[in-house]
């Protein structure tokens, strides 16, 4: 794409040399070099915890590097805040979305620089400016709407609009597609390609290799905070990327990840098994239902649908988190009462929520305590908790999912996004639930870990668990499910 003598330009959009970034007790980047040509789309890949987000944040002024030189658009960049970076034309679309949900689209877009006259905010002016800012990203929404009411994809587009409106010439995207469905993904990719053609420089962080191959001119692979290699877009293939991602010593794991066939033979006995999770005429919040479905023991049933089609709401209603207005839910022979999480848990139901930051984790507690959350009673000996046993079991659960960057006592907030996701999974998988409701289980997880999680889900099903799966990642849904149920506008 747009190959206008890009390589011959002497000035690079980003020229980073020997960037080192240390966090208390941990080195995230150990001397990384990165050169990004102006007007190119540069892929940044690596396993969970490799340092991608950290490198992106250094470029966008969120972190100050401990050592190394950073130049942006040919000028040395010694920024102390994202504001400095923004002024120099660098913006970042964060992995975790960052808006004030109560404020309107327009207010969020112009946060920190609201137009005023005589001390009063010029709402009209602000909203018409916002409407203009939304045009380049093709977002057709009322600027007076509260951001909290937007979908994830819309919020993402809003972040891009904000970056463009502030005059950014370089935008770092940190896993922008991880929470989008297929169609939205395609739309975002097309938008980014168009913006790149129009001269924007993009750094694209992602675990989705096909999309990286599709839009990136060049890609850099990080491993354990170091540069593991670079590839020109024209001679990159998925195999070569995987090889660079996991390194030679872990080639085996990668090979298994790529080729392990889903144990289809398990689907056969499941066919005769009785329905283990049974839902009859369920109705819930915001027009959900009526829904009927059955999941047999040992079966993985995928729910397919667009964002907003009610899949997550269905899972939360089954688990008792959202009110159930009508219908019955059976687990085995027991009927679950509505709106009662404890009853669901006691019946052996588990829910892996879609939003790890809001619903999955207590960010201030350490990983082990997050795994133990809600099942502390398991380690009660007499009147007190056996903390040593708890430590032992939770660490085993964390090790099983290969969570990297753990430090005892350190808040889970310090883990990389993918590793946080593994912590959420570790809690629920370690309970060997009888019914597992999983919502976007591998959001933000790297290729190798994804395969490991898939294997765990298959093993769990093989041991007789009924699994109801929601995933916007269509290949994942297809690969995991023995049966797919389409869901549209609140009904199956």
């Amino acid at each position, binding site marked *: 794409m747009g190959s206008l003598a890009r390589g011959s330009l002497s000035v690079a959009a980003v020229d980073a040399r020997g960037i080192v*970034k240390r*966090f*208390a*007790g941990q080195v995230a980047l150990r001397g990384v070099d990165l050169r990004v040509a102006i007007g190119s789309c540069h892929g940044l890949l690596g396993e969970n915890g490799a340092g991608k987000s950290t490198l992106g944040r250094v470029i966008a002024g969120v*972190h*100050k*590097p*401990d050592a190394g030189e950073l130049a942006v658009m040919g000028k040395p960049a010694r920024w102390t805040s994202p504001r400095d970076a923004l002024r120099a034309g660098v913006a970042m679309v964060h992995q975790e979305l960052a808006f004030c949900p109560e404020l309107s689209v327009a207010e969020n877009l112009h946060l920190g620089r609201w137009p005023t006259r005589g001390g009063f905010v010029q709402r009209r002016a602000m909203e018409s400016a916002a409407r203009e800012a939304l045009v380049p990203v093709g977002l057709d929404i009322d600027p007076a709407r509260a951001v909290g009411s937007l979908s994830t994809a819309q919020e993402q587009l809003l972040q891009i609009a904000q970056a463009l409106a502030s005059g950014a010439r370089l935008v770092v995207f940190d896993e922008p597609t991880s929470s989008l469905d297929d169609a939205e993904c395609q739309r975002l990719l097309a938008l980014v390609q168009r913006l790149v053609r129009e001269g924007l420089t993009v750094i694209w962080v992602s675990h989705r290799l096909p999309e990286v191959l599709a839009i990136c001119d060049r890609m850099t692979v990080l491993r354990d905070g170091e540069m593991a290699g670079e590839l020109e877009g024209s001679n990159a293939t998925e195999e070569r990327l995987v090889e660079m991602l996991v390194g030679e010593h872990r080639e085996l794991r990668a090979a298994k990840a790529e080729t392990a066939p889903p144990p289809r033979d398990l689907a056969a006995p499941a066919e005769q098994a009785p329905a283990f999770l049974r839902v009859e005429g369920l109705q819930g919040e915001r027009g959900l239902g009526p829904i009927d479905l059955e999941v047999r023991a040992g079966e993985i049933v995928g729910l397919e649908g667009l964002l907003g089609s009610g899949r997550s709401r269905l899972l939360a209603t089954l688990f008792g*988190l959202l009110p159930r207005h009508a219908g019955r839910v059976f687990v085995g022979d027991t009927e679950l009462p509505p709106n009662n*999480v*404890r009853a*669901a*848990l006691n019946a052996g139901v588990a*829910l892996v*929520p879609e939003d790890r930051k*809001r*619903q*999955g*984790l*207590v*960010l*201030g*507690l*350490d990983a082990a*305590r997050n795994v133990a*959350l*809600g099942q*502390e*009673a398991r380690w*009660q000996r007499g*009147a*007190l*908790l056996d*903390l040593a046993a708890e430590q032992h079991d939770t660490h085993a659960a964390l090790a099983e999912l290969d969570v990297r960057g753990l*430090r*005892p*006592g*350190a*808040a889970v907030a*310090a883990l990389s996004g993918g590793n946080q996701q593994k912590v959420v999974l570790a*809690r629920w998988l370690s309970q060997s639930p009888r019914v597992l409701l999983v919502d976007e289980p591998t959001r933000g997880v790297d290729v190798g870990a994804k395969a490991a999680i898939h294997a765990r889900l298959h093993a769990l099903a093989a041991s007789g668990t009924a699994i109801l799966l929601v995933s916007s990642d269509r290949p994942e849904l297809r690969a995991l499910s023995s049966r797919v149920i389409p869901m549209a506008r609140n009904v199956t």
Partner: protein
Amino acid sequence: MNSAGPSSSSSRPWGLLLVLLGLGTLLTLASDPLQTASGTQNAFLRVDNLVANVATPMSWMAIMALGATLVILTGGIDISVGSIFGLSALATAAVLQRFAVDASAWLVLPTALAVALGVGTACGLVNGLLVAGLRIHPFIVTLGTLSIFRGIGLVAVRDKTLPSLGEQLPTAFTEGFVGARWNVGDTFLQPVPMIVMLVCTVIVGVYLARRVGGRQLYALGGNEEAARYAGLPTTRLRVRVYALAGLLAGVAGLLSCGFYQSANTATGEGYELAVIAAAVVGGASLQGGRGTALGALLGALVIKLIENGIDILREIDLGLFVLPISKEYSKILIGLAILAAVAVDRLGEVWRRARAAG
């Protein structure tokens, strides 16, 4: 100072201990020598002062700070503790003055416990049910009950002080229990309030560290939605912390009533500020999710030392200038000292964070 440990919660006491050490040194150096029967002693650093003026009156404050810590841990706040403290002290006095002065301890003590703890817990339960049931912000709820609980005392006790004129509380409760004396050399100690304080600290400490319900409070305060998703009984936990805060205020009221052998309709007025300050100085985060029992105890000690310092010092010679300390300044000084203590303690945290975040 907080950079010593890997996590803020485990390293926090060190910052506080440093504050305490500094405060103790300052007070020792600044206070005048005092002539007593057993020779010259430091006005601050002597058993008489530290026990009678610091440790004993700090007992009720520390016990309430434990309750405040539980509430603050969940992201809540209870500003009605002073009123609960006063009401349970009044109720205890009202019931006990009906007993004969020499009534048997077997009769008096269980009654006293039941009344004080019952009133405290009932008040706390009201707070908890209003906060959890009506989903009103705890500041508003306890602002209301602060006034109501105080008002109940005012209406019920017309002559403002109990026991009423001519009445006396049973000695089995006062001198025989809360105010019991241990003779040490030529002076005496009244250790019961301190012992109760330490026992309460240990119980709350074990509850927070080693009991399911206690540990879950950290999750509730850290991220309520995640706690709900993990299946925690969030409503029950929330009601429980307010009830426990009430219970502990009841314990404190019991001690104060027995120690002073009386209660007043103004007992505990304004205590909520000192109590919340103690909890916060002790490391409880008003955002929720952080706080320890030991912190509450040390926080109360810091506050009490500052008050004591103002009591015994008339001026501090800072070399460059002489800082006058008179009673009129005490409010300002306490406020400044609280801010300074928190600042010193937090500085380490900020520094550690800055290093972590670059």
